[in-house]
């Protein structure tokens, strides 16, 4: 009876046509019920239906053209304070029963070696159905049509013979998800995401350069109508060409640097987003990506008054958008750093109980096959009150660092080196020499304390491939911020 209630969805929010799901929803109830009957203290279950498209075009040739459909179930159990999880694509009652049984058995076997039983911070059992805003359903555009467009965009990357390689990659995802748990939650989410990455490689004599750009959002195909993609592609090609004439930068210690929102996106991702994951703070990622230098420093000053950072899944249209996480917790804006003071982390229900804070909806898994982890949603630097032009005008000597390239970060997210696609030298408040092969390096607290000006306009960009976990889960997130000014060492990258 208890579980039957879980399926009475608030009619006001029932946007999604039941038939649209084309999923056997009773199986979700069955999975939770079965694992509970076996003796699990807590059970949750995600029944998911995925539609994925992938198109890859390089130098005029279609390298990949793919449509995937998959659906399955992931059952998570808590038995004697230990976690067990099993997924299956066998959506028969037999298959579900087997999955629930294995999830129970795995948790029970683990519980022998769990000295501190897992406790979950309480949360409301939400019953809700919602979907991502979408004007033009990905499946309403013929695959052939999309393919033709991606071929055209790739072609536009070739702005001259100096472009030796072009690459256009299109991804489209539609995910229908049902989350139910043994506490009575029932959440349905119908999501749609798409992005295109464009890259141009240029060459002149022995000099090689490249430039890339990603356009994407949570929504439908309409984004490619809002953006003039042919123009974006040709601008990307021109940028790659222009970099061939740019000058190599010379290393300069403690230089004034202005970071644009694209570069800030990777910086905030690597040195604020990842170390803000509470599992990482607790040392639970030590064997993989590493730990966090600011463990135990909540409430301490780690940066200047100009440093504020958030993680916010509630921003519509972003790759990190959701209203409820994969534990059924209602999403909210998380304040990670406020005016230079470390305020909080991203949490699961389990880590919230450990830290004694409210759960803040940080748990996500890429598909039903994976157990949820604490992940970024949209992590970004908070706004200031400067204008971009003012930042440059008031800089006597410095560098405008533009667009992310590659990170090299230590395991504590303390020492960082991140390269940029391009930079400009600033002299007496004006952009002068165009520079290539540039990277910045610093120590996180040193850089945070050096931030002395932040612009008003925040931009959140799509980052579709954030990796974490074992087995690795590559997840789509949003990152960004305003322009920031601080001090870091400018490196010439060989």
């Amino acid at each position, binding site marked *: 009876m208890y579980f039957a209630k879980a399926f009475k969805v608030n009619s006001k929010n029932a946007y999604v046509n039941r038939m649209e799901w084309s999923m056997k929803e009773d199986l979700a109830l069955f999975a939770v019920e079965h694992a509970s009957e076996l003796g699990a203290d807590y059970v949750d279950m995600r029944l998911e239906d995925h539609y994925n498209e992938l198109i890859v075009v390089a130098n005029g040739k279609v390298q990949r053209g*793919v449509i995937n459909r998959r659906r399955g179930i992931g059952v998570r159990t808590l038995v004697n304070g230990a976690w067990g999880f099993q997924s299956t694509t066998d959506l028969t009652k037999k298959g579900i029963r087997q999955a629930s049984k*294995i999830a129970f058995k795995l*948790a029970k076997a683990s519980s022998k070696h769990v000295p501190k039983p897992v406790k979950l911070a309480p949360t409301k059992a939400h019953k809700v159905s919602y979907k991502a805003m979408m004007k033009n359903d990905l499946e309403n555009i013929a695959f052939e049509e999309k393919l033709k467009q991606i071929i055209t965009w790739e072609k536009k990357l070739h702005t001259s013979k100096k472009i030796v390689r072009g690459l256009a990659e299109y991804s489209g995802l539609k995910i229908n998800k049902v989350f139910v748990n043994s506490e009575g939650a029932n959440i349905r989410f119908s999501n749609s995401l798409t992005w295109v990455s464009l890259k141009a490689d240029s060459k002149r004599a022995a000099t090689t350069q490249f430039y890339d750009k990603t356009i994407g959002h949570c929504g439908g195909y309409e984004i490619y109508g809002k953006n003039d993609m042919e123009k974006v592609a040709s601008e990307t090609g021109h940028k790659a060409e222009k970099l061939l004439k740019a000058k190599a930068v010379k290393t300069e210690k403690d230089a004034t640097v202005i970071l644009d929102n694209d570069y800030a996106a990777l910086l905030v991702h690597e040195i604020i987003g990842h170390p803000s994951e509470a599992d990482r703070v607790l040392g639970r990622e030590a064997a993989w990506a590493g730990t966090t230098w600011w463990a135990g420093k909540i409430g301490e000053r780690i940066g200047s008054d100009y440093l504020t950072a958030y993680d916010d899944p509630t921003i519509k249209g972003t790759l990190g958008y959701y209203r409820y996480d994969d534990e059924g917790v209602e999403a909210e804006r998380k304040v990670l750093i406020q005016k230079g003071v470390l305020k909080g982390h991203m949490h699961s229900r389990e880590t919230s109980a450990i830290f004694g804070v409210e759960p803040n909806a940080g748990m996500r898994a890429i598909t039903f096959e994976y157990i949820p982890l604490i992940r970024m949603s949209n992590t970004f630097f908070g706004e200031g009150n400067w204008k971009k032009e003012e930042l440059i005008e008031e800089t006597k000597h410095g560098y405008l660092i533009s667009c992310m390239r590659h990170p090299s970060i230590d395991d504590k997210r303390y020492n960082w080196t991140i390269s940029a696609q391009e930079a400009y030298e600033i002299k007496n408040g004006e952009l002068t020499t165009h520079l290539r092969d540039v990277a910045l390096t610093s120590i996180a607290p040193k850089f945070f304390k050096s931030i002395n000006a932040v612009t008003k306009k925040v931009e959140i960009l799509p980052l579709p491939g954030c990796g974490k976990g074992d087995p690795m889960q590559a997840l789509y997130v949003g990152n960004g911020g305003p322009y920031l000014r601080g001090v870091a060492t400018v490196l010439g990258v060989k």
Partner: protein
Amino acid sequence: MASILTALKEAGETILKVAEKKGLNEAEAYLVSNNVLTIRLVNNAVFESKGVHDIGVGLRVIKGNMLGFSSTADLSKKSLNKLVDAATSTAKARKLPFKYSFPKPRKIPKVAGVYSRKLAELSSEEAVELAYDMVEASTAHSKKIKDNAGVLNVVSYETSVLNSHGVSAKNRGTFFEASLSATAKRGKSVSEGSDATAGRSLKELKPQDIGEKAAMMAVSGLKSKKLKEDTYTLILDYEPAQGVIGYISYLVSPMIARLYFPLFLDKLDKKIASPQVTLIDDPLMPNGVGSAPMDDEGTPSKKQIIINKGVLKKFVYDSFYGAIDKKKTTGNAIRASFAVGVSSFPGKNYNGEPIPFPMNPYFKPGKWKRNEIIEETNKGLLVRRFHYTRLTNPTRGDFTSVLRMGLYAVKNGEVVGAVKKARLLDNLLNLLQNVDAVSDKLVVAGSWGDYAHTPVIRTKAHVAPID
């Protein structure tokens, strides 16, 4: 096993019939059953135990000169019918400017030691205990060990590939990876150590060894000195040498080279490494960590030399990239997760088209004993772990890795002490061209789902301290 493979084969035959009925010229069904068991350890305890049971099919179709692909995890007749339509729809507009046909049937060789019933049938209870043995061995090694984290992944897969030319081949395999990171503390000093291995059978899994080696490395780093930025002679122990093999594997895939890492594209038959470097791909190696009797298109596996005495001799091919370059498939079609550098699923992947990729690559062993390489090094660094390794400029070969743990100074032929964290900043081609010693023994090494058989190599590279 028989029942799963029979069911997969039957589904494959159904798909081929539907495809033929719908007027497609050729079809190829790749069917998979994966079982993955993961025991994750954190903070000296079992953190989570998780499993995946995944069955599905990937379908490629050819209509005229057009190629399409689609996949599904639903093997019902209705779904398989829709699958053929979806694959056909992706083929529209994907016109190939060259002639392409799926591989023809060929005799598949046998490879010993790639499937272990004991590993495939490992119970969750046994897996948890084996994983936890690593923690116990590490903790027992020294009171200075304060924390342990790691993983045991056990994978068993069964695949079946059928195509319109009559290819009807099946394959199965098992695989495990086990790794542990240990943290040692003494006063304010904190140091990490790790060990990891992979194998195809349960008898190769020695959790106590892993735990003990991780602990030894952690304790040895408690007293460490900061190095000066310089170009050093580097002895790359097994794990970092595997990291180099891992990147070469990307570079010799014509698909990955074209799309992402073009460093070797213009270097066929050119010298890219020192004469000490020979890279072989041998999927027929008994017990090989990447061995298989056939590739994921049903083409028989074969041993081949990729880099011969420093000269790049070939790229590896599946049938599609072979057709593009007017070459025959080399039996290197891999159905793996698509994302470069991200091995997101340890089993076989039916959700993507094949990727040409080395199956079981290794550096040909040299004449040196590992200890001789150290003894013959006057001044240098012994590097035992790579972390966060990146080819930051894939056209030029800029290469970086964080030397997070297991870094030691070598002086007058002896390892004289641990060195604090540092960052390697150099070029992969320089690294390969500077190789002047290769050890005589292959050891399975790697991390995070990426393993290979490898010797120890000695080279030179620029290294800077990390504050």
